[in-house]
């Protein structure tokens, strides 16, 4: 490994607080990871000289060399298949697939190989792979650039799935994902890439699989992940003007799901609305609603409301805002649950 170690640079100054966009925060975390562990490799389509179509890997190839940060040919299945082989040779791959919709060509390798190699080999061949996947909609992009695949990943035994909602979260959750010895699908909400926030460059402390309360409230709980957390915070701000105090729970880990956290919140608020971008039917909202109903059956004052994308293919530009959960739709759902 000497060759790789030589290329490793000094890690980020820890503990400091800096203002970063989410895309910069992910870049910082990747630098920390590449620097601390010579086995970490970053690869995918256009992640090298270009620095990724969202500049998330900007400068990494220059800093860590083209052996550790490199472009692959345009073939998603081989990118994930290659990750399996690299992991079997003791490396810690951090592949990127360029966009959510282009994870589909790699689904066979992800589901049939990555997710179950540790199981198939009874623990002999772990898969410490973190798939970085720019995900979800909201940026008026071309077809296949606005998809939400979390239900598929969460339904796949052997995968862990996470979706950060702000720069600080993105930083800590990526450190945690890459350092984990299990395969993690790390879903980056594209719509929030340019969102700048103060980020404490610190080690994550919450264990994998815990949610967090972004805003406390007592009249109902809004459950969301990725960019929809932000949307729910805006809803909560509006509702507060009318004296309605909404709790916003950022689920963040979509597998394992923090059932205890959901139940703790809704036991207090008695009401819940789950919000996601993916289509309604068989979306992760159904799982969230079921976990809440299971855990709060006697306390629940109304059925858990789901505000989601419609059961239609993700649309183009001007229709995007008609498809995604709007503030109005969430507010109406809140009203429905309060008046039930």
């Amino acid at each position, binding site marked *: 490994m000497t060759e790789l170690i030589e290329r490793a640079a000094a890690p980020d100054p820890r503990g400091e607080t800096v203002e970063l966009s989410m895309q910069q925060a992910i870049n910082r975390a990747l630098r920390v990871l590449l620097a601390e562990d010579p086995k970490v490799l970053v690869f995918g389509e256009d992640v090298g000289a270009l620095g990724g179509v969202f500049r998330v890997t900007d400068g990494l190839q220059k800093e860590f060399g083209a052996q550790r940060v490199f472009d692959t*040919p345009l*073939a998603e299945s081989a990118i994930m298949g290659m990750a399996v082989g690299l992991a079997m040779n003791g490396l810690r791959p951090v592949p990127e697939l360029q966009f959510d919709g*282009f994870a589909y060509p790699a689904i066979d390798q992800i589901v049939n190989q990555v997710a179950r190699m540790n199981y198939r080999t009874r623990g002999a061949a772990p898969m410490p792979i973190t798939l970085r996947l720019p995900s979800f909609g909201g940026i008026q992009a*071309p077809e296949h650039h606005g998809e939400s695949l979390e239900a598929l990943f969460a339904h796949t035994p052997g995968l862990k799935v996470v979706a950060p909602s702000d720069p600080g979260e993105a930083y800590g959750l990526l450190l945690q994902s890459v350092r984990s010895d299990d395969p993690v699908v790390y879903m980056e909400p594209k719509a929030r890439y340019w969102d700048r926030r103060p980020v404490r460059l610190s080690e994550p402390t919450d264990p994998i699989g815990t949610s967090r309360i972004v805003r406390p409230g007592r009249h109902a709980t809004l459950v969301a992940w990725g960019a929809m957390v932000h949307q729910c915070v805006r809803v909560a701000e509006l509702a507060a003007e009318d004296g309605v105090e909404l709790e916003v729970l950022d689920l963040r880990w979509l597998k394992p799901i923090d059932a205890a956290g959901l139940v703790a919140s809704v036991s207090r608020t008695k009401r819940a609305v789950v919000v996601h971008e993916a289509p309604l039917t068989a979306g992760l909202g159904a799982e969230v609603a079921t976990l809440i109903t299971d855990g709060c059956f006697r306390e629940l004052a109304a059925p858990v409301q789901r505000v989601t994308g419609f059961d239609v293919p993700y649309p183009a530009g001007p229709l995007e805002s008609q498809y995604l959960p709007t503030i109005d739709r969430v507010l109406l759902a809140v009203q429905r649950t309060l008046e039930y």
Partner: protein
Amino acid sequence: MPPRESTGQDSITVEHLSPELTRRLYRDMRTARDLDTEAIALQRQGVFPAYVSVRGQEAAQVGGATALDPTRDFVFPTYREMAAALAYGVEMVGYMATHRALWHGGLYDVMDARFGAINAVVGGPVPHAVGWAIGERLRGGEGVAMAYFGDGASSEGDVHEAMNFAGVFTAPVIFFCQNNQWALSVPNHRQVAGGSIAARAQGYGIEGVLVDGNDVGAVHTATAKAVQRAREGGGPTVIEALTYRVEPHSTSDDSARYRDEEEAARWRERDPLTLLRAALVEAGHADEVDLDRIDAESAERAERIRDGVAEAPEPHGSELFTHVFRETTEELTRQHRTWQEEVEL
């Protein structure tokens, strides 16, 4: 064939083609160029959220598309086939609508145009062309399918599977690779092991042709030959048209980050339109007056298309729900109602 690093000294000839055809080729390439320029302007004005330029690839696209018969063949494009669409006769306001993000697949009628929906999955539509071609043989038709794809797309498993199917079924299909030497930021030598997509054909027992993609006559002739063979039951052909993406990948891209723009500049010198214009005059197929007239007509047509797409109405939100199924479902009707009550108003 020009060297991959062209010096810009080359010229082409169109003496083997009819004056009518060559003037048509010039007109289509010219219109496509003008429309491309208009599109970039629309993007700068914020009318298009983004745009993928075909500049420099007009010969490859027009040369190929004009060798087909739009009354019986069928084209399966990617997202970068504007000049091919234009030359093939697609209704161009509907085509350009995709770039204004009005509807992902464009607003033209794909069955009417015999030109498939704009497809953003790299490699994805190539097996469709093979399926169409196999169906055509089963139906006893004489149509030929044409799949456009890029050098980057050649890395995708679907392209291999499609070529193998085509070989096994002797399908009347043309695999038309526009090798513009870049797949976003990745150059050929980091993308295409062995360096040539045409050379892959042999491994499937099918015909492979490498052609100068900036020589419209050469592209047209090579494609016409492949079309004829396919029509006569001779099976598939892989055509690799070597050209160059002189613009960035899209208006969102910054190609200076990954390539020496000198290289692009050298290829701009070898502009397919300039080459064709000189060849037309040289062959006596047109004089400067003719060409200036075509230029003026083309510019006018491009403007009309530009205005058409800029002014096209946005699709109504109801269309979200009406095209999902042929026979809709109660659940979707319910969601449509929710949308009307909670979003539309």
